């Protein structure tokens, strides 16, 4: 009898499957004639952190950007397939992109606060949604800054310029701006790559807390970060998903040789 047939994990292999927040089906993407994603099938679990890992050019950022239609403005961009957010097909032509981006927020590699005050950065999205001023606006700005772990550091400088904050604070401010409009999903494209180790750990702590309320999709080149942070991980290579699974097993015992070579730093 082989090991596979006789082995049972101590936990009995029971894992309650979380609900699905975003379902990607048959997704194919081209820039001009160059195909960058092919046949992507992915069920992103609700209120969990899912990491997209893979070498440069594997398509992970393209995939991330498809989830809230950030590729739309790129010349020659074309996509086929479905990206289902609940009942809504994000990829379909008639989608309200502004509403989509409220529901699916994005945090980039380098913090990109607007050249406004700390307060107005967080209030920006709320004002776009019609919440111009008043106690409700103030309450939601404060709540978002609290949730982003920034309130204590900026409470006495809300009117100061956001650009005067440290990089780590700016990145948390951008997160506060994204969550102020109560999204369902937060997309994070290497959010810690411009931060020092301490700011990175602060950010990771924050993301773990946010995962209790939001679905997080994280693109990272840092394997240790993916291993520390993510509940699930998808390994992409050459525009395809090679392997998707619980981070715990992907980083100790990947099923695919390609995944193994990537996460252990071997030549291919």
């Amino acid at each position: 009898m082989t090991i596979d047939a006789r082995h049972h994990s101590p936990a009995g292999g029971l894992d309650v499957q979380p609900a699905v927040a975003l379902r990607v089906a048959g997704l194919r993407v081209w820039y001009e004639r160059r195909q960058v994603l092919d046949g992507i099938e992915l069920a992103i679990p609700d209120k969990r952190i899912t990491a997209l890992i893979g070498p440069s050019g594997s398509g992970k950022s393209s995939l991330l950007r498809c989830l809230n239609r950030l590729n739309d403005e790129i010349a020659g961009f074309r996509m086929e397939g479905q990206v289902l957010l609940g009942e809504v097909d994000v990829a379909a032509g008639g989608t309200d992109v502004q509403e989509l981006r409220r529901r699916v927020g994005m945090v980039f590699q380098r913090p990109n606060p607007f050249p406004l005050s700390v307060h107005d950065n967080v209030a920006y999205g709320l004002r776009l949604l019609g919440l111009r001023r008043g106690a409700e606006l103030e309450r939601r700005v404060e709540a978002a800054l609290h949730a982003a772990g920034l309130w204590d550091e900026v409470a006495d400088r809300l009117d100061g310029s956001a650009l005067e904050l440290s990089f780590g604070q700016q990145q948390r401010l951008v997160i506060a701006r994204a969550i102020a409009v109560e999204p369902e999903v937060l997309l994070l494209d290497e959010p810690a790559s411009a931060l020092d180790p301490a700011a990175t750990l602060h950010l990771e702590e924050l993301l773990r807390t946010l995962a209790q309320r939001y679905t997080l999709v994280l693109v990272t080149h840092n394997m240790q970060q993916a291993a520390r942070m993510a509940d699930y991980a998808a390994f992409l290579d050459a525009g395809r998903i090679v392997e998707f699974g619980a981070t715990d097993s992907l980083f100790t015992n990947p099923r695919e040789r390609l995944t193994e070579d990537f996460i252990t730093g071997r030549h291919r």
Partner: protein
Amino acid sequence: MDRLHLSQHISRRFGSEVEDLRREVLAMGGLVEEQLDAALAALARGAAIDAREIDARERRINAAELAIDEQCVLVIARRQPAASDLRLVLAILKMLNELERIGDEAKRIARIGERLVGQPSASDLETGMHALGTLALAMLHDALDAFVRLDEAPALATMHRDAEVDATWRRLQAMLIERMRETPDAIPAELDRLWCARSFERIGDHCKNLCESVLYIVHGKDVRHSGLAKPARA
């Protein structure tokens, strides 16, 4: 054989660090094998052993354990190994412990062998003891071979031989008790032989654990307490 593709690390230094670890474990395993072989020879010959040689070898085994242990810690701290690299380092940490204990048991057997010089026993007991010791030594050799090859089949086959060791130990135990009953004057010597037999049986268990570590490296599955040590029924 490079079943772990250690030479394919992009960082050649990391690849050679892990390769060194593996080589040092095998060198330590070789020392433990020598120690067990010497203990077995001492028992079989009934001749005085070179105690200094046994002690010196034990010191080398202990030093190897500490050095490899420290090297594992450094690899974890510097490289944060993942997947098969992580499994190899974790398995080596466990294997060091098993090898060191086998070394201790071997030393104990050698010491008892020294006391038994000039204390003849029944021939069937001596035959049984030799059979048990030979089985334990073969298990150690085959467990180390399974580690060299990182192969499931020899690891499983070696684990299954622990049942044979256990059965031989039980037979020998019954024979020793019987002889003590019949010849009370022989009790001190036969008690010593009982300890030797018990040590061989423990060595079988440690070899089984070594094989479990090999299976963990190869498959990424912890097979402890899974019933895999028992041969499948025909």
